[in-house]
């Protein structure tokens, strides 16, 4: 009985150590991530890059395709959220205008025009 209790205590202790090590000390390192898991600031910059690129080529299909990589179905909403975040972060007015222009065009585009995420 005493041996079983000691074994159980060891199991609990070992499991706790394993979880701490595997989740905190040395968590799984991802190397093949998709844009959908980008850190928030990188994600916002990704959206801004799409808006800047759209400024140059006015290719809404291409812009929608790039935004869909982020895994959010409402592309116009995604761009508007980014604009709000960038405004709060103090981005230049021209950046916000570019985002607004893209969001407006995405909102006006027919649904079938946009790619399925």
């Amino acid at each position, binding site marked *: 009985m005493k041996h079983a209790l000691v074994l159980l205590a060891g199991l609990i202790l070992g499991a706790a150590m*394993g979880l701490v090590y595997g989740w905190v000390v040395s968590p799984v390192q991802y190397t093949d991530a998709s844009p959908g898991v980008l850190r928030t600031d990188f994600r916002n910059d990704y959206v801004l890059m799409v808006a800047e690129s759209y400024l140059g080529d006015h290719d809404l299909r291409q812009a929608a395709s790039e935004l869909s990589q982020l895994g959010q179905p409402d592309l116009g909403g995604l761009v508007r959220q980014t604009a709000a975040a960038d405004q709060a972060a103090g981005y230049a007015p021209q950046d916000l205008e570019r985002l607004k222009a893209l969001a407006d065009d995405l909102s006006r585009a027919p649904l079938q025009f946009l790619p399925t995420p």
Partner: protein
Amino acid sequence: MRRLPLWLLLGVLVGLALGLTYAWAVRPVPLSGAAPSALRKDFQDEYLELIASAYNATGDQERARARLALFPSVGSAELTDLARQVLASRGAVSSVRGLATLSASLAMPMGAQPSALATAQPSASPTLVPALPLTVVPSPTFVPQATPSATPLALFTLLGKNQICDPSAQAAFLEAVVATADGNPLPAIEVRIRWDGGQDHFFTGLEPEKGLGYGDFEMTAGVTYQVQVGASGDWIGGLVAPSCAKTDGTSYPGSVLLTLESK
């Protein structure tokens, strides 16, 4: 009683294995907050294309450089390689132009911009010039021109059309060197080629070691080519690989060098 530490050790080891298995395999920490450099290779390439495309649209070199800094292993050469890959695989003109322009900007001092982007913000002139350590011989075999001086095109002026005989060359090339009127090389200029039964294109700036305004295409001996520099320029016709002679009398196909200047 003496066996108690053994049971404890056994429990810890088994527990540790179970805990690690759960933490790494069964329920790993969910992926979030990834940096661009942690993206899959193809997504990284798309991210780089997006940086280049945004730079091409805005001309904001400082921002482009800050974004590129997220990829410590990517420099001018890597962007040029990516531009070549995109050109070969998808032929996406805007992406290739953006990558070539960004690659050229990285090859210049901070603050200087490739001429293609410098119209809005005049900046320092790049110092690189096309380096062609070859013997250039004026060709008597090309399409006759009224004068050897400039031929007007829609976007570019043809300044020179020369044959190049280089016995050490591996192949015959149709080469183009494009620059602004004040001599700044122009990267990311699309050069279209057509011949009887085919067509292709290349961009300047994808071989920066030969100059940012330089681009080339491998010619086939005996085929007559036409070339269009820029999106809407006139076609330059009658371009054939010249026949050159080695010192022992044997012949080989030479190259053609077009020198153009933006209006």
